């Protein structure tokens, strides 16, 4: 699995379930993300896989559906409480293959309230105001944006946070199938934004040598005013500095602010399991309000159904984003070719854009080569 909170959440849910059903015994194993999928794949291919396993939905789940290791759960789970974008995550080829997650990940900008006050800056409502805010902060000697420029992942996060706002109609066109290329000017312009911020000096000095961990540390120690990341970043910042006074806002577009979110995924059942009924019963439990509240409390997450609440103030601010749409990268990483996908191509090559070795149009062309629009359309078929 991933962050500590998720582990605690599942452990608490399992505790509650086994107390209510003493005849059931559930063993819980958790692995770091980098190892998890290789272990899972090897175990499933060898026939010794777990009864229940976690996936991040979308095409991760598709891999297991295609290889025949995910049980079809149509009609077996009570998912009436979930919205359609929650169910989308687990629906493959028109059928439900996993239990939706209890919380949503939002893309957001975390900002240091004290530093904003110090510079006399308010939360920007448009992209122009955002650029002006960065200029003001810079003039007052405060680093506007923390950026781990040594790795591509921070750029990827920053891009996911900003590109939907900067090119909203492009993403609508991609999703509806009107456009199927990345070389579209709206998209390349949005991709170039992070380079422009670097050239305008909005990042810290020597940002090309800063790692993602150092970026979080910079923000957490009050050395930078903003960091562009997702709701998962909250736990990372809190781990470094619990005292910090932060808030969150959705990245503002030129005219409209778009919230971007993706519902976290949940559990699926192994087709080779000997205990399918018990497994499905447990999955049903994870979809109840009680279990979801446990998970939301454990991860300080943002709930996706009624009846579940989140007390954390910062996360409430994160969730205030209007008109949310699914993560833009869903368009990008889903339905890659057999060997790669556009998001991985972006991650492997964006540092070259920053250093000037290639330009965003060349990157867009490479991304086109790694994408399969037909498979993407199939994934969104209901």
């Amino acid at each position, binding site marked *: 699995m991933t962050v500590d909170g998720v582990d605690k959440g599942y452990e608490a849910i399992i505790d509650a379930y086994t107390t209510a059903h003493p005849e059931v015994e559930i063993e819980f194993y958790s692995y770091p993300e980098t190892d998890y999928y290789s272990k899972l794949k090897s175990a499933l291919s060898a026939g010794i896989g777990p009864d229940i396993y976690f996936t991040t939905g979308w095409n991760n789940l598709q891999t297991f559906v295609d290889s025949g290791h995910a049980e079809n759960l149509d009609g077996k789970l009570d998912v009436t409480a979930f919205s359609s974008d929650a169910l989308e995550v687990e629906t493959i080829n028109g059928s439900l293959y996993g239990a939706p997650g209890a919380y949503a990940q939002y893309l957001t900008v975390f900002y240091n309230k004290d530093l904003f006050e110090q510079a006399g800056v308010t939360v920007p409502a448009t992209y122009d105001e955002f650029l002006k805010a960065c200029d003001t902060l810079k003039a007052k000697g405060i680093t506007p944006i923390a950026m781990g420029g040594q790795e591509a992942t921070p750029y990827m996060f920053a891009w996911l946070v900003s590109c939907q706002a900067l090119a909203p109609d492009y993403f609508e066109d991609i999703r509806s199938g009107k456009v199927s290329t990345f070389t579209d000017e709206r998209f390349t312009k949005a991709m170039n934004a992070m380079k422009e911020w670097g050239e305008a000096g909005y990042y810290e000095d020597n*940002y090309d040598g800063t790692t993602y961990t150092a970026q979080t540390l910079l923000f957490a120690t009050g050395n930078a005013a903003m960091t562009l990341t997702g709701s998962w970043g909250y736990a990372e910042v809190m781990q470094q500095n619990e005292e910090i006074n932060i808030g969150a806002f959705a990245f503002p577009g030129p005219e409209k602010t778009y919230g971007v979110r993706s519902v976290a995924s949940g559990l699926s059942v192994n087709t080779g399991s000997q205990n399918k009924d018990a497994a499905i019963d447990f999955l049903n439990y994870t979809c109840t309000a009680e279990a979801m509240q446990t998970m939301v409390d454990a991860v300080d997450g943002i709930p996706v159904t009624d009846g579940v609440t989140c007390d954390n103030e910062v996360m409430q601010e994160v969730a205030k984003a209007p008109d949310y749409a699914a993560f833009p990268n869903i368009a990008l990483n889903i339905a890659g070719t057999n060997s790669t996908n556009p998001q991985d191509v972006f991650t492997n090559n964006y540092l070259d854009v920053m250093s000037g070795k290639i330009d965003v149009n060349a990157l867009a062309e*490479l991304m086109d080569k790694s994408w399969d629009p037909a498979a993407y359309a199939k994934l969104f078929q209901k």
Partner: protein
Amino acid sequence: MKKILNMVKQRPFLFFIAPGALLYLVLIIYPMFSTFVNSFCQWDGIGEKLFIGLSNFKMLFTDPIYAPQFLNALKNSFIFVVLCYIIQVPLAFYFAYVINRKVFLSKTCQLLIFMPQVISQVAVGLLVLLFLDPNFGVVNNGLRAIGLGSWARGWLGDPVILKLVVAVILTWKGIGIPMMLLIANMQSIPAEYEEAAALDGANEWNKFRYITLPLLKPALTNIIVLIFINGIATFDIPYLLGGMNGGPSGAIDTLGTMFYRVAFGSKYLTNNMGLATAIAVIQFLIMVTVSVIQISLLKRNETEY
């Protein structure tokens, strides 16, 4: 059947090597064979395997997305090997010679020079990351403290500097074993040869060049092959310092990190095990070919005493 039993009885060593041979077969030979077979298939790690012949190998050299990465990784692996040779071999000789002369504190020096070999690579990599961090690291803050703040930069973001840093760490880590090999061999050279040479009027340098060096050729062969094999397969340090993508502009992307990225690295599970095993097979072929060439060339020059 009886004939075989008889043959085995007359060679009791077969019983002794059987358990080891079995383990070796299962844990090393079988996976190697399986890797070789996988390199001719299209496989994502869990689904079906589709036989596609040499397509994976072709893709590594011609595909617009993978070929540049692969050729870059190949180039970097060779660069690291060459840098290791240039720095490690002369240094190992120098250290071994000086320590063999039993100068003051030579045993302590021997220990200190060998120690990096046993320190965990991960610990070293993480420490270096901390040292070189532009905002919190010791190097930049130290430079600022002594007034050389203008020299402070994003060390980890500069491709050339990153390559040098990796080469230095690899050398620092790897110099222990070549040095120890040389010391052991030097100590087994009978002292009479050197004394005879000294009587004939040879100075230190001549003694080293005409007596010690030729007699060290077997050790030299071993060192050269070892450094190549370790260098071409290097993964830990480049992975720690540059991440899965090989650092800025793939500056420290090696065959090892590219293999990891293709086999396990996709966040969205579009992994291509077939392609990754093709990389591994090519790496293996390079190692075998070069090692065979090196050994055959160097064995010819060995001197017997």
